[in-house]
């Protein structure tokens, strides 16, 4: 029957009607009557069957082409472009006039969908909770040799960082919440100032030191929250957060740290 299957398939390319194919095959394998040792393939009349020989692959839908990675990249770059546009407009506006109505800043921010740091505060809260669970499972504060290795393999999406030292002087002093921890850079959401609209900033990790504060688990009797400050040495941190957990870090010559 299996060999018949193949022949049947071949015959579908020649004849359109199913009955005709069955009839031909029955004739071929009949115990009596005319047993044909050969099959006659004819050129088919219809055009649809010719599709087998053309080499175009099935088209993938647009939705399937869009991966998370690509759309994140597109989102970040479009946001950055919008910010640049808005910053330019603010500059132009300031140069022109001071008497007329104030710059419609909030409206434009909404229109261009510039991310604001207030949207990411919750992410930072979640991160602080995650850190407290990771480092102080019993609510007890441990010594540095126990904390530091855990920190270096932790995830930093949502951490509030500040650039304390960098070879790029323009980066120094930037403060914001890490939105995406890429391999070679941190995408940080910073608050806006008078000149700058705020939003995303891409800060390269190389030759940069990032400071962050770890809030300690609070007890009932004290009102004020306490924290321990730490520094990320960017040049040694150029690993994606997925790979970092299994990575074995090593000491190197420190000439490239700053």
């Amino acid at each position, binding site marked *: 029957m299996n060999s018949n299957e193949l022949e049947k398939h071949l015959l579908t390319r020649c004849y359109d009607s199913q009955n005709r194919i069955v009839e031909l095959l029955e004739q071929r394998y009949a115990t009596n009557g005319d047993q044909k040792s050969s099959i006659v393939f004819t050129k088919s009349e219809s055009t649809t069957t010719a599709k087998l020989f053309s080499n175009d692959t099935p088209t993938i839908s647009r939705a399937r082409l869009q991966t998370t990675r690509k759309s994140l990249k597109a989102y970040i770059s479009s946001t950055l472009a919008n910010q640049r546009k808005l910053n330019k407009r603010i500059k132009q506006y300031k140069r022109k006039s001071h008497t007329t109505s104030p710059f419609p800043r909030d409206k434009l921010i909404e229109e261009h969908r510039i991310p604001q740091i207030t949207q990411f505060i919750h992410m930072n809260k979640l991160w602080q909770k995650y850190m407290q669970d990771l480092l102080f499972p019993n609510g007890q504060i441990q010594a*540095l040799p126990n904390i530091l290795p855990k920190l270096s393999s932790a995830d930093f999406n949502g951490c509030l960082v500040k650039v304390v030292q960098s070879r790029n002087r323009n980066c120094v002093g930037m403060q914001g919440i890490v939105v995406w921890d890429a391999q070679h850079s941190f995408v940080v959401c910073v608050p806006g100032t008078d000149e700058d609209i705020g939003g995303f900033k891409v800060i390269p990790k190389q030759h940069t030191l990032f400071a962050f*504060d770890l809030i300690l688990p609070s007890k009932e009797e004290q009102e*004020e929250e306490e924290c321990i400050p730490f520094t990320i040495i960017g040049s040694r941190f150029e690993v994606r957060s997925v790979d970092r957990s299994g990575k074995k870090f090593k000491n190197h010559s420190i000439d490239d740290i700053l």
Partner: protein
Amino acid sequence: MPYDLNIPWPVDNYTSKPTPSQLTQLKNIISTNYTLGITHQVINYSITETVKIPINNANEINPIDITWLRNELVNFPKLRLFTRLTLIVNDSSKIQHLTKLQNHFDLIAIQPLTEKALQLTITNLDVDLISLNLSSRLPFFLKHKIIGSAIDKGIKFEICYNWLISGAIGYDGTHANVQLIKKNFFNNVLQLIRASRSRGLVISSGATQPLQLRNSNDILTILKTLGLDRSRAKACMTVNPERVLVNGRLRIKSYKQTISVNDNAKLLENEHENPNKKSDSLVYKRKLQDTDTGKLLKKVKS
């Protein structure tokens, strides 16, 4: 901000304690150095390999009483004091406790006496500084290959200038000939500069008396005489010692140079550190409101 990585601690073993006059001398050296503009000073405790280190007694490993010194020198607000251990070794393979010592001293230096010791130090040990005894004739030839590999690893080489000026004043008389020491010093330093190709050198005082100290201009002149150009000579006093200090400090403060504890946002700072127990994390504790994070969070929420 020049650095001085070598101010000798008056005692070189664990059994005896420094006398009060020796301590005043040390204070005088530090204050003179500070008036010369050197803010980061490292007190060097140097022992030979035969001295037995009390490994099991964590409080006694570091004999330098840094808290006492800081309290005595409280008038100098910018002064930063660090501690350093120098091991004088014939055979590097005999050093086993180095990893245990690393948490008690800011810097670890090795003074190799033989070529084999030098080679083993560079290949096997995790040290910050190599200090060769430049006053006597080196028993081996410094090869560029060995010295270069050390510099690639981030290990720097120390030149102590006190051998050059200890002759006229306060010469202690244990050495045979002042002229010979100076001759050896020049020979050895020239050899070191040749082998290192003028990279990775650190100049420090090693002064046992306040009058042996010199200011940065004089040191630059010395280095220029030795054949270093001005920028490299300056690097010997500023960039290179800073890197040595950062390297040593990161060993204590950080996990494999990835994340370190933040002390005034500087990598080599040790202001808040507990000198007796360097791994203590509670000393860094601060109120959230005073930090930049707290301020930003408050601003955003309001």
